């Protein structure tokens, strides 16, 4: 225990020193962020020289809190979710020294926004069915295909890309992972409108996009393994600090209940209290999971949290409409917009209801997550597979 405390104390001193040396108010924002990266205070669990100090990840939230208290600029983490949450750990695991030198710092400072070119119309839950082709041409690859569900594509400078480099082997074996330049002229980004009326995502068409082989991550044919590292990071993103009671959707519905005494009915109250209890259960489960992670007991339980979050968001937002009645039948705005993040609390109840439907689809459907829990946590047998040993090009599409 003493060692842990010592480490935390030492880290705290480093933050104090850094803040003393870099006035968060007067230092140029990008300069400040670059310096913080160089000081190893970006993500303390990364190695020294790569934005970190090789410390346990559980120490990061306290560092972030210290910087926030000091009024320091942050790296706008919510507009670079893919970069910070998925590209960075994958680069760390599979990147060459040169790639790390090139990409990590501007990624963390937000100078370069990243997006993800994984899903395709024919490769959703079955991501290994990716059909976008990358063909070798000297020290470059030429990429053709169509990707979908790409958030921030219109803003991104770089993308992580999964492409098929060999259709003659079984589908998991023929994939390769690249870093793709989104400013390549062969990239076309089209907004993909959703049931909310917004276009949060995009379709991305790749036509003769040229990627230098130096931007390959992992070996040729090793793309599936690299992509899984990325996806595991997606599902493990539990967020930093403690979450107060009645955060998020349950708070919205509880407020609506308190504000509308005239609309209270026993059936609605029963459902409200059930969902309130389940929301607390989810919150405490998340707290327990964070406590586990902090002492280094990570596991696939993140999948379970995502399941619960989606289910609660959907049931609560449905209840909100029913509680509001007439007001619940009105929609704030159907105009096509291209927001950079989901705004559950700023938009109206109809938006919340519709947008929450995506929670159980994006980033792994609830059905896939249930499979993951059943197989990886409970040790139940995998689904019978018919496509393991068949060359990709011979699979029925």
């Amino acid at each position, binding site marked *: 225990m003493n060692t842990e405390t010592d480490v935390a104390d030492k880290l705290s001193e480093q933050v104090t020193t850094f803040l003393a040396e870099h006035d968060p108010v007067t230092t140029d924002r990008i300069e400040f962020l670059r310096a913080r990266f160089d000081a190893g205070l970006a993500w303390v669990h990364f190695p020294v020289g790569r934005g970190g100090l090789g410390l346990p990840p559980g120490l990061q939230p306290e560092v972030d809190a210290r910087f926030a208290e000091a009024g320091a600029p942050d790296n706008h983490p919510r507009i670079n979710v893919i970069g910070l949450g998925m590209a960075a750990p994958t680069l760390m695991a599979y990147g060459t020294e040169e790639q790390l030198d090139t990409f990590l710092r501007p990624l963390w400072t937000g100078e370069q926004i990243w997006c993800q070119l994984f*899903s395709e*119309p024919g490769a*959703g*839950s*079955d991501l290994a*069915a990716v059909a976008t082709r990358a063909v070798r041409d000297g020290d470059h690859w030429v990429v053709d295909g169509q990707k*979908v*569900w790409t958030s921030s594509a219109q803003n991104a400078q770089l993308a992580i890309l999964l492409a098929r480099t060999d259709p003659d082997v079984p589908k998991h074996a023929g994939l390769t992972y690249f870093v793709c330049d989104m400013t390549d002229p062969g990239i076309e980004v089209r907004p*993909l*409108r*959703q*049931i909310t*009326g917004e276009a949060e995502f995009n379709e991305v068409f790749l036509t003769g996009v040229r990627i230098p082989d130096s931007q390959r991550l992992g070996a040729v044919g090793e793309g599936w393994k690299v992509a899984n590292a990325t996806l595991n990071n997606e599902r493990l993103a539990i967020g930093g600090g403690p979450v107060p009671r009645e955060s998020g959707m349950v708070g919205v519905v509880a407020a609506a209940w308190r504000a509308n005494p005239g609309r209270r*009915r*026993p*059936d*609605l109250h029963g459902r409200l209290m059930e969902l309130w209890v389940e929301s607390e259960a989810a919150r405490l489960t998340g707290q327990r999971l964070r406590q586990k992670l902090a002492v280094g007991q990570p596991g696939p339980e993140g999948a379970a949290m995502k399941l619960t979050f989606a289910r609660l968001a*959907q049931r609560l937002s*449905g209840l909100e*409409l*029913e509680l509001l*009645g*007439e007001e*619940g*039948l*009105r*929609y*704030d*705005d*159907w105009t*096509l917009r291209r927001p950079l993040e989901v705004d559950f609390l700023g938009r109206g109840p*109809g938006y919340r*209801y*519709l947008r929450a*439907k*995506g929670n*159980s*689809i*994006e980033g792994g*459907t*609830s*059905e896939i997550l*249930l499979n993951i829990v059943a197989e990886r946590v409970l040790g139940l047998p995998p*689904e019978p*597979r*018919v*496509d393991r040993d*068949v060359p990709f090009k011979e*699979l*029925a*599409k």
Partner: protein
Amino acid sequence: MTELNLLYTDVEDDLRRTVRDLLEDRLDPSAVIAMYDGDRTVVDPLWKAIAQDLGLAGLLIPEAEGGVGASAREAAIVCEELGRAVAPVPFLTSAVVATIAVAGSGQELVADLAAGATTAALAVPFTTAPEGPLPALVATNGALTGTVSSVAGVLEADVLLVPVEESDGLAIYAVPVAGTTVQAVASLDMSRQLADVTLDAAPGTRVRSDAANSVRAALRAGAAMLASEQVGVASWCLAGTVGYLRERRQFGRQVGGFQALKHRLADLYVGVESGTAVARYAAAALAADDSDSQVATAIAASYCGNLAVTAAEEALQLHGGIGMTWEHPVHLYLKRAKTDQLAFGHPGEQRRRLADLVDLPFGSTEAGESQ
């Protein structure tokens, strides 16, 4: 044996075929999607075809008054098909609710409704339960003043039927929509867009006195027929999802072959079958003026309101990403289903009413209505 027939008769099947053919021919889902961006051009010609060409506007009006003289059984078939197509026509609001509100009043309006020459809407919020509070406007020398919010079917209507509280009870006035201010509302379901209506000394004609029972009957019929619309919505969701999952392949298999999804779809099938039975029962009881009709309507409204939402939510989830897109029609059904769930009395309200009707009151009769 006086058991009501819950099957579809041959005549009813023919009617269904006629309506379905017309809708398949004349209503592309993309036209409904366009309504969310304000393009309502599909509505008028489609409604004219249904109301006038097929003559369905007069379905519930006796032949003597210029109508078809059919019953709630047939109207339910039309609602089912309109639900199955999320069709943006005011059949429910005009040919069912408004028509029943003035049926038998002997007014010329009835013949105009029967002919589809006039389309009307009852000026109450779409959420009004059959036994719920009614907006009651004030009439002074035939000039009506007041506001009613969230009215369905106004945007398609020529005439508003406005409940007015008079000294001798509730009356219904007919008010030309042109004499009112109609503010269209951005609605969750743009295929049945709501509107707020303001009357500022709008000229109206009393078409019925002592009209409370007529208004309640109209709303109950609305709730009963809405249940059939909800069955239509749920049926489309089930059939569309089964069809898609038989086509869609992932992991080298038809997605519809994954057992967890099979079981959910089988559950949904059980729900749709049950919904069909209760909606049919409500329609048959209404058609037969059966003494169980109010119970039947409350059962159907309670059951089908939730069924359609469940079906649409399952359809969306099981379609995966494609179901979240603007171009795919599944969202039209979700928006319709969620809106319908709140219309003419939420399932929770319907069950509360039912509890009284079948002697399962919440409150103890001895102890009073305490919690």
